[in-house]
């Protein structure tokens, strides 16, 4: 048993987090920064963070993930990291020539209180920021919030630094992408294109974290929201934020700065969340939903109907980020599955409110968010009463093996499989893909474990 020390007996933990369902802010900021074309993320702290974050993202995407670091030493940690960052900026522009350096911080630079505005403006005064190039920053203290918070902070900094209103509104809808895969963004862009809606998606990981192999290394891949597009978001007539935890701050900043109103929807995972996203886009871009998309929806409903017998009443345990767990649980419930245990290391009232609403007809459901809402707790719940399915990141495989429970990989990080950044989970097509994965996991397990006389040839 890989997790043999986990017992059903819960104690009221007040200090010890075990097997977290979250990680720290900067990796989210680094991730989001990759969605800006020509941008090099920069970690202002000691270099261990930067290496860990690059490694975590690389393991997940099986793609290059570039970022630089201020490489604090003990001296800088005591006297401030100003000289380190200025030297970084000089080296980066000289050697790596990005359009933008997107700086984020760590618990180190936040604890010592480095003044980022002052440091960057000194770098500018000293002539280390070439003409036409930009250095932006966001504060991402690791001891506040989680990786989702870091993502949100980075996306907000894009708005603060680039979005500009020329007072000439254009018939364009901004789509602010919450934490999702490039495949998900590709699907969302496809849907918008099919609707003939004019949109600007930011951040945008397509052609960055699913880049083709052509024999060359492109430090700044073809994809990513361009600075021109990012600037133009201030002139769009409306914004749709997908995933309140990762995008609402940016939407509010954009409204405050450029008077672009916004609608907050869930990341379009599953039937209903996709419905709501499309209706919002249809309404605000003033375009109808074409028949082709309605047919996609019909195909998904057809698949769900076909699968109902095998999914009905199945108990599911899930862990991950609130912006994905909310629509995912809603989707499971729409298939009459029972998300009985849900944990998210990222805390927030909204998660609790939404979960309560989504799970209202499942009295045995337990959910928890924030500190110590970890995978150890969830495993203890499973030990108390088992589940039929696990949905979450790679760390779930240890539970899946110990408890012999079917497992669908979803979220971040998925370190032990590849291709997830190619196959969407969003939109109706993504939902169909997800349904198939769930069904396959359940049926593969059944085929492997049922008595021989019960092996079925057909569904």
């Amino acid at each position, binding site marked *: 048993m890989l997790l043999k020390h986990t017992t059903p007996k819960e104690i009221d933990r007040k200090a010890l987090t*075990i097997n977290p369902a979250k990680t720290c802010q900067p990796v989210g900021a680094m991730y989001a920064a990759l969605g800006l074309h020509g941008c090099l993320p920069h970690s202002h702290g000691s*270099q*261990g*963070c930067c*290496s860990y974050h690059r*490694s975590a993202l690389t393991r997940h995407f099986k793609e290059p993930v570039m970022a*630089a670091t*201020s490489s604090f030493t003990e001296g800088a940690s005591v006297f401030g990291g100003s000289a380190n960052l200025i030297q*970084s900026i*000089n080296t980066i522009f000289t050697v790596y020539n990005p359009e933008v350096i997107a700086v984020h911080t760590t618990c180190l630079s936040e604890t010592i209180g480095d003044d980022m505005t002052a440091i960057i403006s000194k770098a500018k005064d000293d002539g280390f920021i070439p003409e036409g190039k930009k250095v932006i920053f966001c504060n991402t203290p690791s001891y506040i919030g989680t990786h989702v918070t870091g993502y949100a902070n980075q996306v907000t900094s894009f708005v603060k630094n680039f979005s500009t209103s020329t007072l000439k509104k254009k018939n364009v809808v901004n789509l602010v992408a919450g934490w999702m895969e490039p495949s998900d963004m590709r699907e969302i862009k496809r849907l918008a294109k099919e609707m003939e809606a004019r949109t600007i998606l930011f951040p945008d990981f397509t052609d960055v974290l699913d880049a083709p192999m052509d024999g060359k290394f492109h430090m700044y891949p073809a994809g990513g929201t361009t600075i021109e597009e990012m600037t133009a978001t201030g002139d769009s007539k409306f914004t749709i934020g997908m995933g309140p935890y990762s995008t609402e701050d940016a939407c509010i900043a954009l409204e405050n700065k450029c008077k672009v109103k916004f609608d907050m929807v869930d990341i379009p995972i599953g039937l209903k969340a996709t419905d709501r996203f499309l209706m919002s886009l249809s309404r605000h871009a003033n375009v109808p939903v074409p028949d082709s998309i309605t047919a996609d929806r019909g195909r998904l409903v057809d698949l769900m109907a076909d699968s109902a017998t095998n999914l009905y009443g199945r108990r599911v345990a899930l862990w991950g980020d609130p912006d994905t767990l909310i629509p995912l649980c809603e989707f499971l419930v729409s298939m009459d599955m029972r998300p009985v245990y849900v944990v998210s290391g990222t805390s927030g009232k909204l998660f609790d409110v939404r979960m309560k609403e989504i799970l209202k007809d499942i009295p045995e459901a337990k959910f928890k968010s924030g500190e110590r809402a970890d995978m150890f707790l969830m495993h203890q719940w499973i030990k108390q009463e088992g589940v039929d399915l696990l949905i979450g990141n790679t760390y779930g495989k240890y539970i899946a093996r110990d408890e012999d429970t079917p497992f669908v990989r979803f979220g971040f990080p998925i370190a032990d499989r590849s291709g997830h950044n190619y196959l969407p989970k969003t939109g109706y097509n993504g939902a169909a893909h997800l349904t198939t994965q769930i069904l396959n996991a359940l049926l593969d397990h059944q085929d492997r474990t049922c008595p021989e006389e019960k092996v079925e040839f057909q569904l």
Partner: protein
Amino acid sequence: MGTKKKADLEKFRDEVVEKYPKKVGRKRAKAIINNDPDTIPQIQANIRTIPGIITQRGCTYAGCKGVVLGPTRDIINITHGPIGCGYYSWLTRRNQTKPETEAEANFISYCFSTDMQDSNIVFGGEDKLKQAIREAVELFNPKAIGVFSTCPVGLIGDDVHNVAKQMMAEYDNKINIFGFSCEGYRGVSQSAGHHIANNQLYKHLIGNDDTVNGAAKYRINLLGEYNIGGDSFVLEEIFKKCGIELVATFSGNSTISHFEQAHTADLSMVMCHRSINYVAEMLETSFGIPWIKVNFIGADATAKALRKVAAYFEDEELKAKVEEVIAEEMAAVDMAREAVLPKTNGKTSMLFVGGSRAHHYQELFSELGIKTIAAGYEFGHRDDYEGRRVLPSIQVDADTRNIEEITVTKDEKRFKERITKEKIEELEKAIDLEYNEYGGLMADMEKGALIIDDLSHYEMDKLIELYHPDIFCAGIKEKYVVQKMGVPLKQLHNYDSGGPYAGFKGAINFYNDIAMMVSTSIWKELKAPWEREEVIEAAYVY
């Protein structure tokens, strides 16, 4: 193949230095060396990383918690800090472990953290740490708990050592609790973390238990072997076959009692010199256990290492047994090598890995007929490059000065001379025993090979562009960068989920994996047929 351009240092160094800001270029030039094994030029190493250069390096916490203590299964390692550090070092190094019984503790697949919040930064985190220890004890009842400091801990002044002491008292000293001041900003790389880990192992674990386990006459420690991909398992098997008792491995597939009983061995073998040479020296000073440098990466290297052990114990029976094991294992090794040589012979490699493998793996590559034309460490010191003879001339700079140096003295009660100095000298002459010695990477590389310390992304890019090696060895951050360029990258930190690569069986695995990598068909498909020059242009016919 075999006609690959020889690494031309001048061209490479000029292009690199030119590109950097002046000061940076001057600094980097000292870390990019044209090798000459006869004179062994001086290299600049173990100095601070240049900000913004895109380094491969990690931090002190990673070197301490992630590398040295991580592999031991029955210590609860609590990361005192915000969640990231614990999270990223959770199951990401492939140090495998295999408890002997179901009842034995194994915490390897768990991540424990105090998950510091802003209030802990403002008001201090000591109380939370104490509570976390209590909860760990209540839930898991461990024999030992290690507490690992992260960046903010040092800054806000939490005293993890004092907390550990208090908590030990709370449990009547029945649980061994100790702290590590391995804040990420200490030193300049993972290396400082190794040193800190070594010191604490010595202070809190080594020598705690005088039990002499096992019946075998020949008792050894294996230092600096972390069981990545099962390397230690293979070596354990070989020792057993030879009738050698492995007292302790630092720290692959290890338990607390390994550390506690390490002082009862009669010889220490050092694999990874960088991470564990401190413990090797302490075991010798304190208990009189000599250490020799070995390399179990490569079949020939493994045979050589076994012969050294046999020579050290001066026992004819052991010598005969070792020769028998070597002969038996080599049959399969030779067969495997013959089978892959046509695919690998004459190819070139470049190795930029941590603090030891960039050297060790050259032996394996040369067994395949693959020449290493450039190599370097992330965080090796000058002695790892130039050999320990330069130790007296290494100056400790300001960035490393604050890493604790502990003074170790002879343990009067338990010190025992294992072998006379005269005997050692005699053996050194007879075979290359490498007693208290490590010759370093440079001595084993040919004249004109490139040696580069703390390789940057830019330098890596340039290396590949100029010399286009057949295989590049580094880590996960480099892997997909290099592969986009059409060059296969073998990860020599995590072995790309492969391994074991140590010992005889490991060598066979490596031969096969490298043969597979250099002959994988997909590299020929980087260009679409309509982009290839040889495609005949078609015209529409209506």
